[in-house]
């Protein structure tokens, strides 16, 4: 299985994915490209663009692209100049038969991802905006560049799952890309005939063996097999096509190691049989008319072998360790860059009359609507030189006259988004009880949090380190699953817990959210920040970490869950600037109440109280 790790081979597989995708962008959905900045990513993109049908449209969609640009809407300049509503078709509708490039896809807001996914599912842009109704056929594929550095950034699952190929260019050097990847034999059309039943079954079995639940995976693999046959110039899908497709589509999605035909996957593997497509496809006679059953191996085994050879070593390692492998979770309703601005501004809730002043955003369509009924009258009565008329297309005769009294401003409801971070002492004999109640509190907060848009995260510390058991989430179901097996007992790395809470708090604040840290502990630390045992250093480290939390401007509450209120806990609270609440038997309901109070305080300290109903900004 050394093959999967070899950079040169990985490059060849990446190029193969690009060529397959180029043949059938809409059918294969997309390619998720994991790549840092550098020439290798550019080189790959070049390969992809070369593989596309001539004339296929390609457009870049930056992260902050608005709905108006993405889906289309009113073209204001043309509307003002022409005196009648003019539609701007938007980016997606211009991409029928082509490819959208999405840089920084890991920062794509969930809403944008869902809009694009909807277009992919229906094969059209359904425009219902700004007074326009239109259907634009739009069959497109996506290239999603995952450039995320942080572990909590990931390409939205809604798009990731619709992309056939997930390729990783990290660790591939320019030198690895030098060897020519053989040019394909055929540029033919995709074979449209039936694929032998056993080949379809092999893909389904292969997906199940790899623990891939979604049926999109074998479906996309089947499409990829067709594209691979076309690349070989064959009209028939053969086992080699299916095996290659499985390696490219199914392997990166694996959540468990398949039971291989060989009993011992760890044993020294025989020199891997390189898939004929990448290494010596040109030496092969085009098996155009060769019946598929020429291969002696059963298709199912062939698929599993291909997958095993293609499993990324890191994934394999994680699977072997029995680590829980989830497809890299998107940070649910959070997100970076563009989203940040949006959440600061709040969601638009309509428009109302107002005066233009700095900072106010004009609601163009509503303004035009307000002005529209008066046009006939104004054209008759107002001279063209009317100084009150705002003439956006000043070079042209003012076809539409807009007066200050028409102006409508956008209204935003300020979003009261916030994150509650539980940092829970999971050590010692009291751990079990404390954890059960915290779990209850987490669920109560989430059950109550819909309107308030509150996310909850949970960090548990015990043994020698802190662990983020629940990354920030708003989904009760997800939190419940993650909290399923809360471990407890062992020594107390309090400082590590507080540090983890501070780092997360910092990241959440950077996204424009208000943050509350709920620390549940008896304050008795015995593991220092570096993991070494010893009460004195552990205590000092904890106090230092607490002070850093305070310096970071994080609102916090310390629930002192010791049997007797302790000096250590009180000092810790003081250092953190936290409210100190001695609560020997913390109950879920009580903790939830403390969260509600704390959140109000956190919001107040994060730049003024939240206005109800929104207002102008």
């Amino acid at each position: 299985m050394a093959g999967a790790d070899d950079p040169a081979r990985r490059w060849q597989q990446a190029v193969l994915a690009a060529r397959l995708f180029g043949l059938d962008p809409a059918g294969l959905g997309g390619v998720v490209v994991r790549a840092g900045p550098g020439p290798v990513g550019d080189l790959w993109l070049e390969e992809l663009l070369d593989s596309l049908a001539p004339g296929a449209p390609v457009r870049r969609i930056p992260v902050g692209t608005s709905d108006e640009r993405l889906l289309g809407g009113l073209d204001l300049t043309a509307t003002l100049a022409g005196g009648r509503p003019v539609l701007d078709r938007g980016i997606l509708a211009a991409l029928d038969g082509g490819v959208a490039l999405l840089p920084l896809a890991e920062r794509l807001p969930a809403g944008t991802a869902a809009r694009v996914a909807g277009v992919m599912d229906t094969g059209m842009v359904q425009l219902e905006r700004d007074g326009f109704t239109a259907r634009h056929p739009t069959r497109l594929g996506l290239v999603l560049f995952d450039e995320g550095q942080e572990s909590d950034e990931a390409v939205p699952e809604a798009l990731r799952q619709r992309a056939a190929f997930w390729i990783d260019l990290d660790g591939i050097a320019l030198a690895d890309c030098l060897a020519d990847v053989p040019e394909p034999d055929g540029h033919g059309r995709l074979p449209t005939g039936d694929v032998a039943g056993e080949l379809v079954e092999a893909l389904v079995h292969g997906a199940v063996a790899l623990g891939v639940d979604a049926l999109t995976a074998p479906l996309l693999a089947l499409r990829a097999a067709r594209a691979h046959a076309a690349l070989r110039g064959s009209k028939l899908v053969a086992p080699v096509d299916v095996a290659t497709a499985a390696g490219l589509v199914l392997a990166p999605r694996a959540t468990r190691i398949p039971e291989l035909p060989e009993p011992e996957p760890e044993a020294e593997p025989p020199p891997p049989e390189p898939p004929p497509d990448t290494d010596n496809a040109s030496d092969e006679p085009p098996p155009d008319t060769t019946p598929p059953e020429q291969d002696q191996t059963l298709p199912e085994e062939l698929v599993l072998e291909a997958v095993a050879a293609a499993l990324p070593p890191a994934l394999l390692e994680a699977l072997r360790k029995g680590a829980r492998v989830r497809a890299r979770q998107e940070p649910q309703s959070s997100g970076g860059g563009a989203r940040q601005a949006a959440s600061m501004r709040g969601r638009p809730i309509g428009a109302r009359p107002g005066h233009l002043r700095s900072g106010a955003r004009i609601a163009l369509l509503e303004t035009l609507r307000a002005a529209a009924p008066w046009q006939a009258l104004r054209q008759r009565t107002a001279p063209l030189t009317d100084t009150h008329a705002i003439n956006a297309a000043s070079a042209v005769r003012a076809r539409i006259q807009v007066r200050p009294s028409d102006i409508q401003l956008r209204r935003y409801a300020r979003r009261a988004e916030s994150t509650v971070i539980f940092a829970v002492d999971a050590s010692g004999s009291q751990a079990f009880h404390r954890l059960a109640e915290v779990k209850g509190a987490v669920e109560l907060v989430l059950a109550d949090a819909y309107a308030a848009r509150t996310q909850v995260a949970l960090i548990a510390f015990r043994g020698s380190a802190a662990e983020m058991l629940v990354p920030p989430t708003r989904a009760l179901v997800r939190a419940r699953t993650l909290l399923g097996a809360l471990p407890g007992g062992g020594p107390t790395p309090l400082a590590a817990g507080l540090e983890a809470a501070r780092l997360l708090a910092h990241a959440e604040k950077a996204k424009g959210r208000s943050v509350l840290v709920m620390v549940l502990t008896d304050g008795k630390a015995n593991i220092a920040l570096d993991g070494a045992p010893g009460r004195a250093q552990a205590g000092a480290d904890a106090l230092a970490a607490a002070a850093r939390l305070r310096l970071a401007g994080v609102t916090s509450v310390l629930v002192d869950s010791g049997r007797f209120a302790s000096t250590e806990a009180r000092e810790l609270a003081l250092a953190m600037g936290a409210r100190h609440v001695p609560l020997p038997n913390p109950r879920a309901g009580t903790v939830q109440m403390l969260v509600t109070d704390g959140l109000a305080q956190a919001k107040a300290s994060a730049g003024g109280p939240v206005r109800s109903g929104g207002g102008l900004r």
Partner: protein
Amino acid sequence: MRPVYPFSAIVGQDEMKRALLVACVEPRIGGVMVFGDRGTGKSTAVRALAQLLPPLKATADCPWHCNPVDDPARCPHCSTHRVPGTRVKAVDFAAPVVDLPLGATEDRVVGALDLERALTRGEKAFEPGLLARADRGFLYIDEVNLLEDHLVDVLLDVAASGENIVEREGLSVRHPARFVLVGSGNPEEGELRPQLLDRFGLSVDVRTPQDIPSRIEVIRRRDAFDRDPKAFLANWQAADAALRNKIIKARKRIDALEPDQDILELISRLCLAIGSDGLRGELTLLRAARALAALDGAKTITATHVREAAPMALRHRLRRNPLDDTGSGARIERALADVMG
């Protein structure tokens, strides 16, 4: 128009299909919410309804496609255009299944001043929105949890009252908007606010089929459809037609189905057992059981129909108990076992 995968060709997913059929037969059910992972075919099933639904009768020449047997006063067109006492000409009209795409603006949803006519002709006319188009049919929102809350509120209000009232830009319009609201979403992506969820009549959970033969069949059919949609649709036309007949017959039968005292008591006891308060749960359960009985061609509503309807009608009405991990399905099963033995 891009071909749509036929309803009858969907493998498995029985509860979802039954819930949607219930809504076809009993539009007053109050909407259907479909939860499920990606790629489970939630949206396929809903969009397939357009091909399945029997055509409606509409008033000829009425842009609102109003029902000829309704009071013309309710229709913005016929209230002013129809001469009282004249015979109404009825035409066939395809039952609408309207997709509300994410990113739709409010003016297109509720309707607004027709900008083109206002600008070019100085006329103040109302341009109907998606709510008007969905009247007498289905309104579907994929990823409903990502829709702006204020739009969801509007939709639920209109769906409950059956009427859309627009007061904006100097317009004052009211028109009928009786539709079945169908939402779908992935619970892993953030849940629906409980107060919204409560307002859906039925709620179903869809999972990817787990048995291998079903999984293979899903792939086979989907692949066949993708390669040659026309041939595939032709193959399934008869099955869809049979299902359509079933809906038509069930619609005729449903009004004659009256629950007897035992069934009413059973429904009350079930709702009590799961702690769903308010009448809404009981009423929905009764309507769903009745629609299922009508679909099955049964002479009476039986305990079997109630048993089948209970999960979809009550699942989202369970009193939330954060400390009880038991899935909602299991809790319903428990209540069913307790009450029905």
